[in-house]
């Protein structure tokens, strides 16, 4: 065994991860070669010293209580937002019932409702309410706390038709927000808005800037779905970039194949 071979085995030798034959060969070399022997001794000494540095002990009871609380909150929130189960009717019966209800509704509407203009006051109030929600959304998205920004993203999802300012703020958040959680929630919020050209283009432009593999994968899926062929160039770049995380590259290659 040569010095160069021993160098490649040193880390394994320290961790006792070599097969017995190779470990013997390394040991023999270390005994005979003063330079490799000294290098190993130093590394071994540091490795051993590291082993006795104690870390603070986890306060498991407190952590467990916090975890249980967070889990309970999550389960309650999920239960509150879960859609209620529809009555288990066969598909043909559901279609028939829907059609019947629609016909009854149309008939009643034609017979009883005058063709009235919407009340201007109500229209005005609705617009004010929408403006207010937009304002709250924009304000929350600029808060320093990630929790507040997450709330802002969630507010944006309540808007029936978000204005250009909200869309621009969401895209801005997707590009520059420091929290991967916030960026991930923006991707979800943008999905119903994929009909807008700005959203599709903005998502595609934001993709090369992402560094978190979770966000990269979620965004790759999104742009692959909504941008199709236009996404191919960016996806190819990611799939071929050796500095990118391997799973991200694999996902980019898979989506690239799908968009053809």
């Amino acid at each position: 065994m040569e010095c160069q071979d021993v160098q490649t085995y040193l880390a394994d030798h320290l961790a006792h991860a070599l097969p017995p034959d190779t470990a013997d060969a390394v040991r023999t070399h270390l005994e005979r070669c003063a330079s490799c022997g000294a290098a190993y001794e130093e590394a071994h000494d540091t490795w051993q010293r590291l082993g006795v540095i104690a870390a603070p002990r986890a306060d498991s009871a407190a952590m467990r209580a916090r975890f249980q609380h967070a889990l309970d909150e999550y389960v309650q929130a999920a239960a509150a937002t879960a859609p209620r189960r529809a009555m288990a009717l066969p598909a043909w019966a559901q279609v028939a019932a829907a059609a019947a209800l629609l016909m009854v509704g149309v008939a009643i509407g034609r017979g009883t409702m005058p063709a009235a203009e919407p009340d201007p006051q109500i229209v005005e109030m609705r617009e004010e309410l929408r403006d207010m929600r937009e304002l709250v959304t924009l304000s929350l998205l600029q808060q320093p706390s990630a929790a507040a920004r997450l709330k802002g993203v969630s507010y944006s999802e309540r808007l029936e038709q978000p204005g250009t300012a909200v869309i621009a703020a969401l895209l801005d958040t997707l590009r520059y927000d420091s929290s991967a959680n916030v960026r991930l929630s923006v991707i979800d919020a943008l999905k119903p808005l994929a009909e807008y050209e700005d959203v599709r283009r903005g998502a595609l432009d934001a993709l090369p800037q992402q560094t978190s593999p979770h966000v990269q994968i979620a965004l790759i899926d999104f742009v692959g779905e909504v941008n199709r062929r236009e996404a191919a160039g960016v996806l190819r770049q990611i799939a071929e970039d050796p500095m990118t995380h391997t799973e991200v590259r694999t996902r980019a290659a898979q989506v690239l194949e799908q968009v053809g």
Partner: protein
Amino acid sequence: MIAVRSGDLAKLGALFERYHAPLFDFLARVTGDRTAAEDLVQDIFVRILKYRATFRDGGSFETWLYRIARNARADYFRQRMALDPLDEEALERPAPGPGPARLLESDRDRARLARALMRLRDDKRELLVLARYQDLRYEQIAEILGIEVGAVKVRVHRALRELREIFLQLRDENAPWNAKTSRPTLQII
């Protein structure tokens, strides 16, 4: 984890019991901050809940978990840097304990090595913590970091060498012959 992914959230409790202590150990050693480590463990398990659908069949749970942990830590420090730049001196300050006079030489060395570890570049410290304390094989570490196994081994060796240099430097700085002592002043009568 497959049960959690399918919606059996109660099973997450078992994963918490098994992994919260090693995760805390990893984060406490890498950040040098106990409170941050506790917060991050919490954040990691919330992320597991949120992103459970991204866990793939046949994938290693530990690898996935440590990737989430690394992302959570990176996000935490990005936010913290933006709001409140890190006090580097505080990071290097040894943990409170008995004063230097009451420490044995071996204890002092241990404290110096802990300080040297905190002075090591972030990615190198993380690598050494994964390799030395987390009971992970180099193959797993390579997967977590997204690099080749050979690169992990080479980097472990280099990081150890660099850590030793910092450690010896700290030792020299604190050696009695380098210590600044006040000389007795002559009194003119």
